[in-house]
């Protein structure tokens, strides 16, 4: 099984340091949640891990091989990157988008029907992009990314446009994928991150502030400090899917 390691990543934009010496080792078996306030450097880190942004210093290595030396096609096959959203220039159908995702790995084409089924997309497969909802687009994108079975999955706020049911379903899929692959997900919903991720990485100002198992990290007062918010920590009913806070009468 593959692993991904970042060492001393620095990314600057003018005077500002978007990433300021980030090191991280990512292994299969745990869904990693990347959390932090706006501007903490989460997306920049994710793009460096995906090989889409080049750090000014430091390296990212997939199984010991620096991403910068990996052929782009091989990187695309082994690392799946799921952006928050993307704009299509042409009105591809759902099936065509998934097929484009499959085109990066030989043999992935045969998996298209199964992947469409697994993501509840079979009925929509021949609908044009302009005719599907935001949630359906997010599922299509996930299917297009996973159809090549990348060793690493990096997802940037993949549930942002989904209703709660779909979002929980998506998190379940990511968690299942994380069992045998490296999987990192940027999340703004702290509650969801604490509940659905196995490991949390808390970032602020381009640095990793905390990195550890989700339950332990959830108790840290650092989270309250960094977000500038006082969180109530409530044990919840393990039968429940989500938490709904109501004020007491």
């Amino acid at each position: 099984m593959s692993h991904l390691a970042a060492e001393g990543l620095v990314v600057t934009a003018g005077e500002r340091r978007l990433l300021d010496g980030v090191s991280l080792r990512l292994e299969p078996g745990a869904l990693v949640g990347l959390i932090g306030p706006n501007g903490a450097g989460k997306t920049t880190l994710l793009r460096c891990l995906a090989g889409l942004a080049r750090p000014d210093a430091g390296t990212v290595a997939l199984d010991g091989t620096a991403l910068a030396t990996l052929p782009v096609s091989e990187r695309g096959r082994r690392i799946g990157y799921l952006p928050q959203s993307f704009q299509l220039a042409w009105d591809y159908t759902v099936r065509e988008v998934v097929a484009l995702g499959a085109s990066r790995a030989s043999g992935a084409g045969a998996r298209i029907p199964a992947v469409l089924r697994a993501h509840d997309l079979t009925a929509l497969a021949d609908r044009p992009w302009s005719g599907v909802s935001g949630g359906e687009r997010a599922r299509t994108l996930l299917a297009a990314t996973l159809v090549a079975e990348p060793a690493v999955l990096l997802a940037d706020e993949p549930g942002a446009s989904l209703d709660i049911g779909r979002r929980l379903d998506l998190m379940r899929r990511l968690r299942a994928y994380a069992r045998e692959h490296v999987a990192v997900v940027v999340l703004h919903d702290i509650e969801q991150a604490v509940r659905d991720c196995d490991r949390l990485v808390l970032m602020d100002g381009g640095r990793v502030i905390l990195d550890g198992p989700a339950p332990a990290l959830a108790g840290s007062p650092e989270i309250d400090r960094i977000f500038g918010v006082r969180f109530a920590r409530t044990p919840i009913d393990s039968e429940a899917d989500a938490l709904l806070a109501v004020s007491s009468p």
Partner: protein
Amino acid sequence: MRFALRLAPLLAIALVFGIAAGHDWAGPAALARALGGADDLRSRLLLEWRLPRVLAAGLVGAMLGLGGAIFQGVFRNPLAEPYLLGSAGGAAIGATLALLVPLGMPSALALGGLSFAGAWGATLLVLAVARGSGAADAAGLLLAGVAVAAMLGAVRSLLMLALSDETVSLQVVLSWTLGGIQTPTWTGLALLAGLAAAALAASLPLARGLDLLGLGDDQARAFGLDADRFVRRAILVGAAVVALAVAYGGLVAFVGLIAPHVARWSSGPRHRAVLPLSAAIGAILVIVCDGLARAMLPPAEIPLGLITAAAGGPFFLVLLRRRLRS
């Protein structure tokens, strides 16, 4: 695929129309006689004079359609046209030199060779300018294209003023810029056909990359496309395809814009269908427009570019309207 099959009879009809159209329309009887190998003057004119011109028109149209599809794919913009990156201005300079300077070689060779070199050279210049200024993305390329086109336009005007000593020669240059298919020799036609086949063969492998670019730069990269390198390669191929069309047909407006649209409407946006269909549709359009150019105001011939522009202009406006509405 189904649409491709439907195009074949359309192409055949366009070919027959092209051979028949002229200031003296050839009726079915005359066509049948000519195709049957009759040896009278009319039949020989149709076969040896008009047929090569119709075939050349088809190949020029195919290259324009193909070039348009490549450029629209690279710039992910349905309003992009094949002359976008300076090829029109460059070709016009080459043609101006060929038409106004005695070069000591056959004029058709000089005109074709220099306009090809001008068109391709101008696009190379645009690529170099964009890279040199560190803006190799689509927007940077477009801006570099605008700047280079303006400079080339100035150079061409200067050349025209400096080199022409009579109004006649200026008219020759002007009529070239309006586009037009000359009857080629069979050797010239064979050369064009060979080059067009090579251009098509070089273009078809671009299909997957163009499809991926349609997902956006980032997603194309995430799916393993070396986007910058691919864009450069696609532009070089596209520019060569367009330069070939320009060398044999001058500046024929709008075909490169229209053909890819019709292809996408009929077969969807995947480029493995859009590229060959755009070529076929471009061929049909130019064959028909070239026939109209010969037949509409006999005995005079209307410049081909005027016909394609007169038909393409309204189409372009409708397109713009639909796009703005959506």
